[in-house]
């Protein structure tokens, strides 16, 4: 655990990508199995613990440190886990710190009481950095600025191997990745995953920049709608079918209605949607089915899932990814004609003569469960990751609304002294016929650091009331808020909720009275 804690500590303070790669590579080279394998699992987000330990920790702390000293310390440090890590008494010289593998193994299946005992034992044996890493690890708050791909790249660098090869294998492997490291160190052959039903990395698109189309030849491209669901991969073989999210998570158990179909021997790329009697439902309906381990009969009936297919990666054991988009499309259509499971259809190609006609179609796409258009180079092979120049996503313009700042709350970490979380509202008519503000959403990004300083000052100077950590401000500051869509919500007082709201512009120039009305937002709801 000590070496891993040191690594996390350095990573957290190292800004450059190359610096991070170097630190991870040195670590992977120096640490033995299985420690480095668990480290790789953690760095790639494969060990998301999020254990409820707050109560256990505060009880352990209370018996060690005076409450007032804890309060003063917490106030100064700004982070509870770090405060506990720093305050905890130093370990005895003889104390042997637990290994990372030991921590992972013993956490597995521990109940609340066992967890408290384990934490106490480990905290007694670790130094301050180790304690910090442990607490961040168990609470799921480990943020060291390393993406899954970067961690895999560091491992690949060990063996002088392209990270794409590691990505390709990745979902056929499991922590602590002994076989992967053995291969990277040249001690064993490349792990063989051909017999396993695994996720293959998806090919992703780049957003279409303004003017980018001017340099492209329309004849070299195909277009298709970008449906407003979630991207999925279907892998099926010998009567077994798996459904993977775009990150490679297995979501089969939540979608038995799709997985039960007759798919044959194939790997497909498509969009998961809710389709009711041939009509696509809004994204909000799909949301009801996501993030569940199992699904009720009523759910299956009310929100029937469906897959709209974009691409084919494997058929009858043939790897088709090295073929062109056009050729794969032929295979996809052929496959669909032969198998065509009930809960699937093909995403139609959009024919167009010029990008101008396409632009016109694009402008009219709002309100059809369509997020935008995909433009794909006909000659493109299926490449993992986000290769440049092959696929482009042309998203429709975001919606926007002028809203009024109502409440502000302080952020955490770097923003712990700033009021950086904002709740904003729109006007509506109240019972007496006057206008009142009603909250329509919350956002905490979309502004620069300098703007944050100004916003913080504005909040402090215009506070009219406080409720705990929340400041109520007088209506006076207008935010132009951008969002992707809006839908009905019973949880919100306004009856509507925005999807992905962010602050697009701070309208210092506008008065609160000029902000939009709730009616305007309601009219944007897609049905």
């Amino acid at each position, binding site marked *: 655990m000590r070496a891993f804690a*040191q690594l996390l500590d*350095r990573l*957290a*303070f*190292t*800004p450059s990508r190359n*610096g991070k790669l*170097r*630190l991870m590579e*040195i670590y992977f080279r120096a640490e033995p199995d299985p420690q480095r394998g668990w480290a790789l699992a953690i760095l790639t987000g494969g060990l998301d613990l999020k254990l409820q330990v707050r109560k256990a920790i505060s009880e352990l702390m209370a018996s060690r*440190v*005076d409450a*007032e*000293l804890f309060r*003063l*310390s917490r106030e*100064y*440090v*700004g*982070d509870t886990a*770090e*405060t506990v890590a*720093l*305050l905890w008494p*130093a370990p005895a010289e003889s104390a042997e710190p637990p290994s990372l593998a030991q921590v992972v193994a013993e956490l597995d299946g521990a109940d609340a009481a066992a967890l408290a005992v384990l934490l106490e034992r480990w905290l007694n044996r670790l*130094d*301050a950095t180790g304690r910090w890493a442990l607490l961040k690890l168990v609470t799921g708050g480990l943020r060291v600025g390393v993406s899954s791909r970067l961690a895999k790249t560091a491992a690949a660098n060990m063996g002088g191997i392209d990270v794409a090869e590691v990505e390709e294998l990745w979902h056929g492997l499991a922590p602590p990745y002994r076989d992967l490291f053995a291969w990277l160190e040249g001690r064993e052959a490349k792990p063989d995953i051909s017999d396993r039903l695994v996720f293959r990395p998806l090919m992703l698109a780049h957003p279409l920049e303004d003017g980018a189309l001017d340099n492209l030849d329309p004849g070299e491209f195909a277009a298709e709608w970008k449906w407003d669901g979630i991207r999925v991969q279907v892998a099926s073989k010998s009567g077994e079918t798996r459904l993977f999210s775009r990150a490679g998570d297995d979501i089969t158990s939540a979608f038995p209605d799709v997985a039960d179909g007759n798919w044959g021997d194939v790997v497909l790329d498509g969009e998961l949607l809710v389709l009711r009697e041939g009509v696509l439902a809004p994204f909000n309906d799909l949301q009801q089915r996501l993030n569940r381990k199992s699904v009720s009969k009523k759910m299956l009936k009310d929100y029937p899932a469906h897959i709209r297919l974009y691409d084919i990666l494997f058929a009858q054991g043939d790897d088709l990814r090295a073929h062109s988009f056009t050729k794969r499309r032929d295979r996809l259509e052929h496959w669909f004609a032969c198998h065509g499971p009930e809960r699937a259809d093909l995403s139609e190609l959009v024919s167009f003569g010029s990008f101008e006609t396409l632009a016109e179609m694009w402008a009219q796409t709002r309100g059809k469960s369509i997020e935008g258009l995909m433009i794909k180079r006909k000659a493109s092979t299926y490449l993992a990751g986000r290769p440049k120049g092959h696929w482009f996503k042309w998203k429709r313009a975001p919606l926007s609304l002028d809203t009024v700042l109502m409440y502000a709350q302080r952020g955490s*970490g*770097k923003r*712990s002294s700033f009021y950086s979380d904002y709740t904003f509202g729109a006007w509506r008519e109240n019972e007496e016929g006057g206008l009142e503000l009603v909250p329509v959403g919350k956002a905490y990004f979309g502004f620069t650091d300098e703007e944050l300083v100004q916003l913080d000052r504005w909040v402090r100077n215009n506070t009219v009331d406080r409720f705990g950590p929340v400041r109520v401000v007088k209506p006076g500051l207008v935010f132009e808020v951008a969002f992707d869509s809006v839908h009905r919500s019973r949880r919100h007082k306004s009856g509507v909720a925005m999807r992905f709201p962010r602050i697009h512009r701070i309208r210092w120039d506008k008065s609160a009275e000029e902000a939009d009305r709730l009616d305007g937002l309601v009219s944007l709801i897609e049905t």
Partner: protein
Amino acid sequence: MSPQPHPETWISPDTCGLYCAPGGFYIDPHRAVDSAIVTHGHGDHARPGHGAVLATSQTIDIMKVRYGGDAGARLQSLALGEALRINDVTVRLAPAGHILGSAQVVIEYHGQTVVVSGDYKRRADPTCAQFEPVPCDIFVTEATFGLPVFRHEPDDTEISRLLASVAAFPDRAHLIGVYGLGKCQRLIALLRAAGYDAPIWLHGALVTLCELYEQLGVVLGPLKPFADVDRKDLAGQIVMAPPGALRDRWSRRLPDPVTVFASGWMRVRQRARQRGVELPLVLSDHADWDELIQTIDDVKAPEIWVTHGREDALVHYIGSTGRIGRALALVGREDEDE
């Protein structure tokens, strides 16, 4: 026999600093006065322009280097442990372990002993004499790191982290921000003790005091002034500079430097992040929380006065031990190490 006057009747802070009336002198006054006892050479303790200055010979040497002719009209050195009678007051200096020449001031009057610690630390430091606890009636302590979250790591842990980083990034220079008096020389001495014998490059502002330390017998090994050096030659090297130069244009002359900052504040992640430090080293010349409470115990004083720092927590702690703790508001002190 009349009862002994409580020391607060004869030693207390005024607008210039802590004043001992029967002795007619201040201790570390923050502005020029007629008569001052100076605990050590840092700028917020040793001010220029006093009439008479009493301090250790090293502190006087440091003041001369820093202030030249303005170091004070009459400079008198007092050896550690030697007693000096000033009016009815007896004054002694005891080692404080903070930097070269640093001393606590031990003041006896009417059978009462007051010890003014100045700044201090308890752990061994190759560049200065180690702190000596002096039993007293009132102990005036610093509290720079007066919160229990501040516990400095062992020096060798931090030095080996630095050396591991130098080895991990052979193409980059390690640029270390250090306070020019004390921290700089101590860090160099610790690196030498750990076997690092390559030349260490110094920002111009650090050269003079390093020379003075060497003259006073502290061996620092090969040092090179940072001037007209080829960028390439600095790859894999250690460069030291005052903290202010870390993010200055000056640092652009270094090859992709790893910025390092050696300070007790680096224990708290947010402080390191605010400075944009890539390798924070917890290395301080001030007592950490454990050393503060150890010292309060060692000096056996029933009453403790707490000066600059985070007094709240320490005063609260002192109260919980059954002693009297009092925050002593002294003007003109700054967060050192900053």
